[in-house]
């Protein structure tokens, strides 16, 4: 009767062992799957980051081109208003009508620039009407989440 009892036990034990082994395998495969999915997401995001970096660079150059064409192109714009770039007539122009580039949206906001007694740019002081602070923002939607990249620079009326 002793042998019967131990065989019964052995059978149950093997089944539990197999179940544990299989569940370990399943869990590790699922973990690897999660890593693979995350890697797709991140690589897609890194591509979008580099595309957005070029769009930011282009935005900064385009605003400078608008300034080079005539300072009035910049000085006549309203402050704290979203502007969008469009390429027409062989040059870059700014307008308030929204436009997107592929999945990206590029906005430009101008604000006033101030200088201290030494003519250095500061965040508050004497208003300099010949200078503007430009903020360019490139944003895109990815996996239900909005990402954005921003640059800020001063733009001065140096050609007139």
């Amino acid at each position: 009767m002793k042998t019967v009892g131990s065989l019964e036990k052995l059978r149950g034990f093997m089944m539990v062992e197999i179940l544990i082994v299989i569940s370990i395998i399943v869990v590790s495969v699922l973990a690897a799957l999660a890593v693979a999915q995350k890697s797709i997401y991140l690589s897609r995001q890194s591509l979008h980051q580099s595309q957005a970096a070029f769009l930011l660079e282009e935005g900064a150059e385009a605003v400078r081109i608008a300034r080079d064409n005539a300072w009035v192109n910049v000085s006549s714009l309203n402050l704290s208003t979203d502007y969008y770039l469009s390429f027409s007539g062989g040059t870059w122009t700014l307008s308030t009508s929204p436009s997107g580039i592929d999945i990206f949206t590029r906005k430009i906001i101008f604000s006033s620039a101030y200088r201290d007694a030494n003519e250095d740019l500061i965040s508050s002081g004497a208003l300099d009407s010949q200078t503007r602070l430009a903020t360019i923002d490139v944003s895109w939607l990815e996996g239900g989440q909005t990402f954005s990249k921003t640059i800020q620079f001063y733009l001065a009326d140096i050609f007139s």
Partner: protein
Amino acid sequence: MENKIRKIKGGYTLVEMLFYIALFSVLALAIITSLISMTKAFRVTTAQADLVQSSAVMERISREIRQAYEIISISANDLKLNAKDESDNNKTVEFLLFGSNLQLIENNVFTGDLNSSNIQITALSFTEITTPAGKAVKASLSVKSVRDATGRIENFYNTVVLRGDY
């Protein structure tokens, strides 16, 4: 007696067997689908890495335009610039779309393709911008990876002012 023999042989009941077979097949299915989607994921990541790498092409174009001081000739698929090299000698730099490769030609000598062999340039466009203060070039580049089964095309855009004559 019969009952005792069955116990010694350690047989399973039909219901037990059915339950285990069902359980193992569900687990096997989960593992197989995971492995398939993982292989797919790695293929997508490889193709994606090619596309990310191709941003270096746009970076090179931007840098050469920025350093140049004059546009010799410009068309949608061909841009030739006058620039200075490290020792301040004049040099010419040309970007030419040849088939699906972007050729870099320095001083009228073919230097090499800017894109790696896994990247195809599907479209290239150069546009000249003239302002009272100087010149600029607007460039757009479309690339795809030969390792991408879906053949997805990604675009890069940039505009660069020629700093050589600014």
